[in-house]
């Protein structure tokens, strides 16, 4: 294909603003899919994505329009996958910024819009859902135009649902998005912007060819990780897999690698030819390292082997997921798993429960810590607070550069939250008269508590949040243990900044007192640093637990009730004879509200 006839673009939209519907309509209008074959929201292939309204794995679809080849590259929409989004955007020259005509721009759209602008993409603004009675196409267009410093007349107004003006969007892409600029004769370089695992064909790389061209059967190599493989098949999705003999500069497609492990083919890496090796990789590759950790335990300990198998299989498709076996005194055998962030963790957990039918107990997430033990100069990375030594030479925790975009009336609320979370103000800028961009240094350990929830609730959902890891810094951290009924519960140990220890220890035991049901005896709950108890609460014994009445007609029902209770009891994790419900292991999440005590 003539490079000047290629247009590569992605769609940036807030959840529910119509990204998937527009994608469907584009496939229809371009006759890529016959209307009758249309499965609603074709691009979201996993059930999970469909339900959550988010897309985890980017894919690319090629459509033909008036003699042009258009590649639609799908992008994930959440902060945990910012790196993946940025790689997807790097594969494009343009992006549709889709805004709901009734809702206007929402905060979460902005981060990706700015990411696209930073990547030098041509933005085509689109106002969707103009058919809705509540739509304000004028207002929404003006808002988008203000944001982009553009003319409101250039905003394409459509209804993806009815198909109204969708062809104008395609025309705008052809007219405004530049053709790819790579050198077709240079040694080949392709950007891996996503990968997927197929149990029959192995790892599939989604690529954007930047320079040169690739041929089928050619021996290829990734430049950062050095993985070699043969291009068993090249092709593109339209929307099904369509094999081709070669992919050349500007084109988007896939490579079947035959690799058996996605972790050997990293998103952001550059593929080149072994025979015609490029000298420089494409910029921007980062090794994505899990920074958020949690213990995953089967509720029923007999499901441990199934959990191990399930993690093995998920890992094939998810290079960022880490897991290692772990034994907890309270919870038995399980795995310590590493995730990119909280959403990634939530997705893994849901997939394990849904696709593998596992009943899981997930401990509160924590972060990676670097610790130097007493009289030791070596740094060890710890992923579980229970492994944290009571005495140490030095400890470091991961920090992030946090970027928060928020309407100006919420700046105070965000600053207050960040101060509570040990944040250090970096700088602040006005993006528009209404919108403020705040930059902070924040410990990641503070974010894995309920930071998102707090940020959302304190800004009425308007804040958009993004972060980049910014390395480790020393911290005044202590390990706080929790004792239930006099027994230490390893799965509840946590690492806290010394200045917060008392306040948060107190909040934690208060929260646990609410979560642990009353038993037939008093249950003391204590928080301790070493042997020093810093907070204590008691779950008072129940004084009454009887079935109100039980006569001839009631016996079966009441017996079944007790049998059900017995079953539930057997499932509940027992710590020193105390039934501890799943929620209790997450109690630590809500202690972030604690104010610094010094």
């Amino acid at each position, binding site marked *: 294909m003539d490079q000047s006839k290629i247009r590569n673009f992605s769609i940036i939209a807030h959840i529910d603003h119509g990204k998937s519907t527009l994608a469907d309509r584009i496939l229809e209008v371009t006759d890529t899919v016959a209307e009758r074959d249309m499965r609603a929201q074709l691009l979201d292939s996993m059930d999970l994505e469909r339900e959550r309204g988010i897309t985890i794995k980017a894919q690319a679809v090629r459509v033909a329009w008036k003699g042009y080849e258009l590649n639609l590259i799908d992008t994930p929409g959440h902060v945990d996958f910012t790196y993946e989004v940025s790689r997807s955007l790097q594969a494009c020259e343009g992006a549709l910024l889709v805004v709901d005509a009734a809702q206007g721009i929402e905060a979460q759209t902005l981060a990706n819009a700015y990411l696209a602008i930073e990547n030098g993409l041509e933005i085509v603004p689109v106002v969707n859902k103009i058919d809705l009675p509540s739509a304000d196409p004028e207002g929404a267009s003006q808002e988008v135009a203000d944001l982009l410093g553009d003319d409101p007349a250039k905003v394409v107004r459509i209804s993806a649902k009815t198909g109204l003006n969708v062809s104008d969007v395609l025309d705008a892409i052809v007219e405004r998005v530049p053709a790819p600029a790579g050198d077709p004769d240079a040694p080949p370089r392709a950007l891996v912007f996503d990968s997927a695992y197929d149990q029959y064909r192995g790892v599939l790389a989604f690529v954007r060819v930047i320079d040169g061209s690739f041929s089928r059967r050619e021996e290829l190599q990734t430049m950062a990780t050095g993985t070699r493989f043969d291009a068993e098949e090249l092709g593109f999705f339209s929307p099904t897999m369509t094999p081709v003999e070669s992919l050349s500069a500007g084109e988007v497609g896939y490579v079947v690698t035959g690799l058996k492990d996605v972790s050997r083919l990293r998103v952001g890496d550059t593929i080149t030819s072994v025979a015609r090796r490029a000298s420089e990789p494409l910029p921007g590759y980062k090794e994505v390292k899990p920074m958020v950790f949690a213990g995953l335990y089967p509720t029923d300990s007999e499901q441990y082997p199934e959990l191990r198998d399930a993690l093995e299989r998920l890992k094939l498709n998810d290079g960022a997921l880490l897991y290692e076996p772990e034994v907890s005194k309270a919870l038995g055998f399980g795995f310590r798993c590493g995730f990119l962030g909280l959403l990634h963790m939530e997705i893994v957990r849901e997939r394990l429960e849904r696709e593998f039918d596992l009943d899981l107990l997930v401990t509160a997430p924590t972060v990676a810590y670097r610790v130097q033990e007493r009289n030791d100069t070596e740094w060890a990375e710890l992923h579980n607070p229970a492994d944290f030594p009571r005495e140490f030479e030095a400890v470091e925790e991961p920090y992030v550069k946090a970027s928060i975009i928020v309407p100006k009336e919420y700046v105070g609320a965000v600053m207050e939250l960040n101060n509570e979370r040990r944040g250090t103000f970096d700088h602040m800028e006005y993006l528009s008269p209404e919108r403020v961009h705040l930059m902070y240094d924040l410990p990641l350990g503070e974010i894995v508590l309920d930071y998102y929830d707090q940020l959302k609730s304190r800004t009425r959902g308007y804040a958009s949040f993004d972060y980049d890891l910014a390395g480790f810094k020393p911290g005044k951290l202590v390990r706080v243990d929790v004792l239930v009924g006099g027994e230490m519960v390893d799965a509840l140990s946590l690492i806290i900044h010394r200045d917060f220890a008392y306040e948060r220890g107190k909040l934690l035991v208060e929260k646990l007192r609410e979560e642990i049901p009353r038993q037939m005896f008093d249950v003391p709950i204590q928080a301790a640093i070493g042997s020093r108890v810093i907070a204590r609460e008691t779950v008072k014994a129940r*004084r009454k637990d009887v079935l*109100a009445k*039980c006569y001839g*007609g009631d*016996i*079966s029902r009441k017996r079944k009730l007790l*049998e059900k209770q017995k079953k539930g009891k057997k499932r509940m994790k027992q710590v020193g004879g105390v039934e501890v419900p799943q929620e209790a292991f997450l109690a630590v999440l809500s202690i972030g509200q604690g104010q610094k005590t010094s």
Partner: protein
Amino acid sequence: MSDTRHLYVHLPFCAHRCGYCDFVTVVGKNDQHRVYVDALLRELELERASLAPELETIFLGGGTPTFTALPELVRLLEALPRAAEVTSEANPETVTPELARALKDAGVTRVSLGAQTFRPELLRVLERVAGPDDVRRAVHHLRDAGFDNISLDLIYGIPGQSPSDLSADLDDALALEPEHLSCYELEAKPGTRFTHAWAEELGRQADAMEDYFERVVATLTGAGYRWYETANFCRADADRDLRSRHNLAYWLGRDYLGIGIGAVTTIDGLRRRNSPKLGRYLEALAAGRTPERELEPLDDDVRARERVMLGLRLDEPLPLAGLRHALDPAGLARVEKLGLAEESGDTLTLTERGRFLGGGVTVELLA
């Protein structure tokens, strides 16, 4: 087998269905009392073979047995086999001197009055027809007719009730010197109009149940009553055992025959529940067929579990012979360690605190 010595007779008719009620009741079919009694007697005939020649107890429950047209009720009572204890439930407003005498003459030995509460505003919440004075009058009429075994039902945890309301109810009940008292916490069934209407207040009452239960037990035992079952109390007379013999049969795991709509029978390891539908019940028996039933076979394990669950409601030691396989030894050790139960010889006795936690203790004990 023909040795079942306990008979339950369900009389479903009521003047009004109270909001909290979850019994099988029928309102507004007052022309059907006669055919219903016919059907009961036919069902009894069909089941006669399973009954012992002499019964120990008969219990007429409802519904409101005493709402049944009096001639029909009398006809029923006279047709029933003889029994040492014949109890009828009654709503206070239905108890006239005439009814009291008729019951007595027809062989009823014991009357259980659904008083529920003596506070007029709480009676209204429960949608009861009777007022507090109806209860007092009913007791006097029954005494006048010669009844020397009267039980009162009380309910606590009623929306709007306060601890002092409950104390006043207990005092008012005790003033009538009943031989027996049943005190139940209000069980509001989820999804009902009543539960919906009182959602918030029911939540508040649930928090107070512990206090109420302790207050009930303390007050009644303080007044000399024997707390012989979780929700039941009887006057501790030296010369008479005033426990409900019929209900004791349930708690001791004996076989019983139940007739009428919704009635449950347990005989020889088979539990069966008659369909609660009046029309089909009448139809079946008019045709001489047994009514539609749900059947539940009870294997040894289930029966043992029921024996534990029911036996632990009583103040007498539970004999463990034959029940061991249904028990979890670790659970047994735990409840002993917690001072909730004591094992001695081959019996298990709950401590006082254990009785307040009987449900939880049962869950611990069951294997």
